[in-house]
């Protein structure tokens, strides 16, 4: 038994993602996986799936699927996207069931840049290095969704839900963040005190140069105050990298694992999902915190998220 969905439309950067490939950065492999990891976990847990099961990551480009065969329950979480399902219009953050002949459309709504569509069943997609997360530069993993293709869900299940589009709670801590916590460095020595003050003082905006590797920022130019002769160094997700022209880029899920540009700061992983939900043009500020403050914040956020995620399976 399989539910077969036809892709009537897929915008750019719509791809299969799962929990990703942790621990392979020493071999040049980024973790990949969802831009908003909390939202992917929420969509899965709402259906009783493992938190890191394969889902469809929907970008601002949007997605329209038509169910051709079978039926399967689904959950949508992440971003304030607009959902049209079988002629009904509602918000993301819901559990519902898709049946043969029905059309499901996800498109950007009032807020958010990434939305996750999970199915109660096994999304059929290729595995690469033990994961179905799509590595965008190579296309390996589950792969990008393209108009005209199909998505098969093996062993589809029907999950009981109270309303046709039963809402899922969307707490404040999964919404975009305007104050992004970061630690200074590790290559802050390439920058003047004035430039570091500008990092924290300026209003920054997400530019349109935004994909799964990273987002270029609009804001003050911070040209490094020394020749760029550093040997390639390991790079973490969340690095605020500054190229020779002074333009800052925040590295995201599919970032390269080493690089030779200085990193003036590193965004806390605990704030990165909410950062990724900012849209091109939206403004934010950096707030520099100490390593001890960073750990304390990560622990607080983990407690909030864990409690909320654990409750989702019970709230249909």
């Amino acid at each position: 038994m399989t539910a077969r969905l036809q892709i009537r439309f897929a915008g750019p950067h719509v791809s299969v993602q799962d929990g990703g490939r942790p621990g392979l950065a020493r071999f040049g492999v980024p973790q990949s996986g969802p831009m908003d990891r909390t939202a992917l976990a929420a969509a899965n847990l709402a259906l009783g799936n493992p938190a890191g099961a394969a889902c469809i990551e929907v970008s601002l480009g949007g997605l329209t699927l038509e169910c051709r065969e079978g039926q399967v329950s689904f959950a949508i979480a992440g971003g304030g996207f607009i959902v049209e399902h079988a002629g009904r219009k509602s918000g993301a953050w819901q559990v519902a069931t898709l049946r043969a002949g029905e059309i499901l459309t996800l498109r950007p709504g009032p807020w958010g840049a990434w939305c996750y569509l999970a199915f109660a069943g096994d999304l059929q997609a290729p595995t690469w290095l033990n994961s179905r997360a799509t590595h965008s530069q190579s296309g390996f993993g589950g792969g990008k969704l393209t108009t005209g293709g199909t998505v098969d869900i093996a062993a589809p299940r029907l999950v009981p839900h109270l309303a046709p589009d039963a809402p899922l709670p969307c707490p404040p801590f999964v919404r975009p963040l305007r104050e992004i916590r970061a630690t200074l460095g590790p290559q802050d020595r390439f920058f003047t005190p004035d430039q570091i003050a500008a990092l924290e003082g300026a209003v920054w905006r997400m530019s349109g140069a935004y994909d799964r590797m990273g987002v270029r920022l609009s804001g003050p130019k911070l040209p490094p105050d020394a020749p760029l002769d550093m040997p390639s160094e390991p790079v973490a997700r969340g690095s605020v990298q500054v190229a020779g022209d002074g333009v800052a880029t925040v590295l995201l899920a599919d970032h390269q694992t080493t690089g030779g540009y200085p990193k003036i700061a590193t965004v806390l992983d605990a704030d990165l999902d909410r950062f990724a939900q900012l849209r091109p043009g939206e403004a934010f500020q950096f707030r520099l915190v100490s390593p001890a403050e960073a750990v304390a914040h990560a622990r607080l956020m983990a407690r909030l998220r864990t409690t909320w995620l654990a409750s989702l399976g019970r709230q249909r």
Partner: protein
Amino acid sequence: MTQAPLFRPVAEHGLLVEFGDRLEEATHAAVLRLDQALAADPFPGFAEAIPAYVNLLVRFDPLVTDHVRVAAHLQALLRQPAGAAQAGALRTVDVVYDGPDLAEVAALSGLTTGQVIATHLSGAYRVALYGFAPGYAYLSGLPDPIRLPRKEAAIRGVPAGSVIIAAGQCIVTTLTMPTGWWIIGHSPTPILDPNGPRPFLFDVGDRVQFRQVTA
């Protein structure tokens, strides 16, 4: 002699352990020693270690530990008597020298193509670090006579398995990607086997020897 390393915090989950700021053999050896010592004696909450030329990024779970405790563990490892770094396994990689840039590399180096091949085969290579793309192992040790800067512009769609050289290094590519390096041949040796029990042929620190094959 390398200096005591610097510990630079990276968000809530990492410490960049920096042994120097210049590419020197002793510095890289210190990175590999700490990487090996950590693999043999990890701390609670250890997530991963990512070695590069002069530093090691040590990542950890901030719900289990923190920068201070991780630094203390690494300091203890660094205080252990500095045994020689393990030599690293020797990996043999086959090459067919049929690359589109072989003739130009010869012309720019003032060598015949046969001499370029012999020079490339004579190198004692080591896996310095991974980067750029999954499975891209940067091999140091390219012999001086065939050291060329990168090309002016990158070529797109260079197939996986290409043997490319530039800036004193060699890479056997694992994906179809653009490159501005010089393509001197291709290798039938699997460097990245995504479904195998050991997906990556090399670990950082391994030694590599090339062997010429025909087709």
